[in-house]
């Protein structure tokens, strides 16, 4: 019987020839990750295990990105716990502000994730790296603690849903619209415990940044991971990212067998996907941009591990170029990594943002989870290119978040209401 990519990667890392959905396995990790929110608990639990050293100082990534630059004294104390641990254990991949980025944009950029890898991270959006043909999934702090000690983690092998993509996207749409459309169709638990495998001829028309966005939000459908096959675009990306020299291993490219088992097959013609907006308070509450009545907004946020990459900034800048943000609307742009920030600066995008009336922030997860750098007051509405619009996600419990693409977010900032990029 054939296996899916996910089943093959899990089997290979568990040292078994075959894995089947429902099977419980213990598997070897290639990379493990924690941030300034999740690592302090992991470090506390690691200490309780009682081992003196970490399993492999080169396969642990610690990225203080959530409440950094430290937003208050308790956050500073948490960041310090992570910094001290990194120093004590000679953690190679500890990224202090100045060289950091939002973890899920940073790790691929630094070549820390390779095709065929098994990656766990104490952050739910760890599923982002599936764009590179890796199995990667979010876990908790205790899982991360035990993996730091043993290099292994337990898994239940997931069933797989095949998402077959055909054609290519219309000009106004991007990867964000594909994943929002899917979540809208199957619901926030439509892929619960399952793997989402994106395949089909349409994948070749999606950029790497678009694929990262799609894999990133697999968790918003409840999925364990989102995964893409490896093509020429992936190989070119990996070649460049490996120049960092942080990972020197040979990698393995896995492909799903033609007779692999899928619990469900969903097909989309990309050409029919218009820009999507997810209404409060669930990512599944999606509507096509053409169906939306006037919704006035107070704030627009462009960035995050979902949509803070170069393509996203270029798209937003193209909409904003030569125009002014509507008076009364606050536009916050935050590039996802230092490299993206610098590239955007050199390309003139930052100038476009500032001239349009936006503010540009250092990389941080802050605004996305209502931490800092753009918290909402009661009754305020925001359009965000982030990933969640739960009650209180970006601030007060009576605020509202509408999830959309960078193009829709930028257009909405100009219009002062949710707007299509071709209307401004």
């Amino acid at each position, binding site marked *: 019987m054939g296996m899916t990519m996910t089943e093959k990667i899990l089997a290979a890392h568990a040292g078994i020839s075959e894995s089947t959905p429902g099977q419980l396995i213990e598997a070897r990790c290639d990379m493990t990750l924690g941030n300034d929110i999740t690592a302090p608990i992991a470090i506390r639990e690691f200490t309780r295990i009682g081992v003196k050293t970490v399993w492999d100082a080169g396969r642990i990534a610690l990225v203080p990105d959530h409440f950094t630059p430290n937003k208050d004294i308790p956050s500073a104390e948490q960041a310090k716990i992570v910094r001290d641990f990194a120093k004590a254990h000679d953690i190679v991949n500890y990224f202090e502000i100045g060289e950091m980025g939002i973890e899920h944009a940073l790790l691929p950029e630094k070549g820390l994730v390779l095709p065929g890898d098994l990656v766990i991270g104490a952050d739910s959006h760890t599923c982002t790296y599936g764009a590179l043909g890796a199995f990667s999934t979010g876990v908790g702090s*205790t899982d991360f603690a035990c993996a730091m000690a043993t290099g292994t983690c337990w898994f239940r092998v997931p069933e797989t849903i095949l998402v077959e993509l055909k054609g290519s996207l219309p000009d106004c749409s991007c990867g964000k619209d594909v994943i929002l459309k899917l979540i809208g169709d199957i619901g926030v*638990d439509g892929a619960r415990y399952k793997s989402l495998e994106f395949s089909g001829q349409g994948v070749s028309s999606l950029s790497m940044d678009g694929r990262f966005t799609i894999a990133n939000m697999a968790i918003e459908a409840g999925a364990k991971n989102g995964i893409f096959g490896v093509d020429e675009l992936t190989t070119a990306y990996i070649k460049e990212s490996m120049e960092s020299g942080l990972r020197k291993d040979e990698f393995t490219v896995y492909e799903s067998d033609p007779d692999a088992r899928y619990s469900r097959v969903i097909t989309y013609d990309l050409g029919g996907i218009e820009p999507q907006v997810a209404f409060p308070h669930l990512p599944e509450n999606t509507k096509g941009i053409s169906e939306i009545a006037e919704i006035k907004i107070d704030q627009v946020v462009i960035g995050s591990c979902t949509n803070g990459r170069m393509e996203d900034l270029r798209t937003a800048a193209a909409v904003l170029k030569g125009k002014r943000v509507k008076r009364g609307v606050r536009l916050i742009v935050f590039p996802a990594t230092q490299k993206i920030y610098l590239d955007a600066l050199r390309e003139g995008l930052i100038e476009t943002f500032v001239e349009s009336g936006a503010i540009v922030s250092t990389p941080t997860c802050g605004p996305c989870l209502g931490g800092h750098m753009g918290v909402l007051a009661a009754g305020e509405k925001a359009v965000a290119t982030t990933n969640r619009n739960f009650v209180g996600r970006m601030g007060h419990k009576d605020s509202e978040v509408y999830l959309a693409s960078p193009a829709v977010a930028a257009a909405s900032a100009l219009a002062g209401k949710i707007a299509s990029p071709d209307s401004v």
Partner: protein
Amino acid sequence: MHNSETLLFEGTAFKYGDNIDTDVIIPARYLNTSDPKELAAHCMEDIDREFAVRVRRGDIIVAGENFGCGSSREHAPIAIKASGISCVIAASFARIFYRNAVNIGLPILECPDASNGIGYGDTLFVDLSSGTIRNVSKKRDFFSHPLPPFMQEIIHAGGLVERTRLKMEEK
């Protein structure tokens, strides 16, 4: 009441709907600490201001589908456990919350019938070893599947850290 030897729990039900996410279980504005008591003080506050005030040791959370969806923050099951909740019953759990609960030893039971047949304030009696849930107020019994042996092993060891420590010592 909480008897850890026999894994029997008795308490009052706090009932919630579908898709209770970890942002409402513990909002991110409180994630600048990992102290269980501080987290417990703000547990569920964005959807139920009364929860932290009214919850008593042994009480039970009962919810609909996809409980604990969203962020991987272990602060969520930690806050629930530290608030005194003995057990969470849901029609289904989001996967990261499920593994976090198992890993830290917070008992959970997946049981759609119980989720439908229990209301806010009902008195419940739970036998974790058999997966039996008794709604004492409504005089109805529900049965959930016990956890797979591998996960029971983690819970019996006292959590994943304890199990890992035992395994490391064996080596």
